[in-house]
């Protein structure tokens, strides 16, 4: 689950990947069509697609000679729950904080 949050951060931290996701929300598209509005070399653009694919935000499939990119809804639904994830991160942090505080407290009591 945390990986989806990571993917979300990854996707929105890069303008090219963000633009790809915005476009894909409207429907699947061929790699060439996705690349057209971007003023970067195709190999560089393909790296962005690979990052999105590796993170599970998109999947690609070969249709004849064209590779079509689809958005994956599940990670996006996860991303929507960013606050839920933040809460989980903070629950974990408070677990560690409490354990550490209680350990320090006990060791200080032992020293007395």
């Amino acid at each position, binding site marked *: 689950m*945390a*990986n989806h949050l*990571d*993917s979300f*951060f*990854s996707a*929105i*931290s*890069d*303008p090219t990947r*963000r633009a790809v*996701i*915005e476009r894909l*929300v409207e429907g699947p598209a061929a790699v060439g069509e996705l690349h057209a509005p971007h003023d970067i070399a195709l190999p560089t653009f393909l790296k962005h697609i690979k*990052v999105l694919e*590796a*993170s599970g935000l998109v999947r690609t499939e070969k249709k004849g000679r064209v590779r079509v990119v689809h*958005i994956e*809804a599940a990670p*996006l*639904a996860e*991303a*929507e729950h*960013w*606050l839920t994830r*933040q*809460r989980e*991160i*903070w*629950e*974990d*942090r*408070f677990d*560690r*904080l*409490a*354990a*550490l*505080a*209680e350990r*320090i*407290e006990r060791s*200080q009591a032992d020293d007395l």
Partner: protein
Amino acid sequence: MTCEFQTFDITRLIAARPETVFRLWTDARLKEEWFCWNGNGWTHDTYDADLIEGGFERVRFTHPEVGSFRYESHLFHVLPASRLIYGYTMLGNTGPISVSQATVAIEPAEGGAQATYTEQVVFLDGGDSLDTRLPGCVAVMDRMKDHAEASNDD
């Protein structure tokens, strides 16, 4: 473009004195130990902090596939054993992803201390310059939400 502000809080009862809990927020070595998350492939490369009023924190989190993010905070207010207020931003390669204000309230409680963390966050949509970045907010989030909800209807 819409702007989205959200707030969440977490409260925890800790079997330790407020002074001890406070120390975990102001002793950099101790804070690094509980604050930095390592797991799911994430590690933190650096933790640099001076946790006093007017002080700062700088952390760099890295994932082998996702890349690096920087966490930078500034402590506005530090009241021993009872309160800290700080602002922080998460930065990606192109600039801030989110900006938050965080308030930590520590109070004596039955059996120890009660700590409450409240965060008010605003998401930024990124962009190539700070000028264009700050006014534009979470349009992408809204579209993702719409898309997720539409997918659920299928």
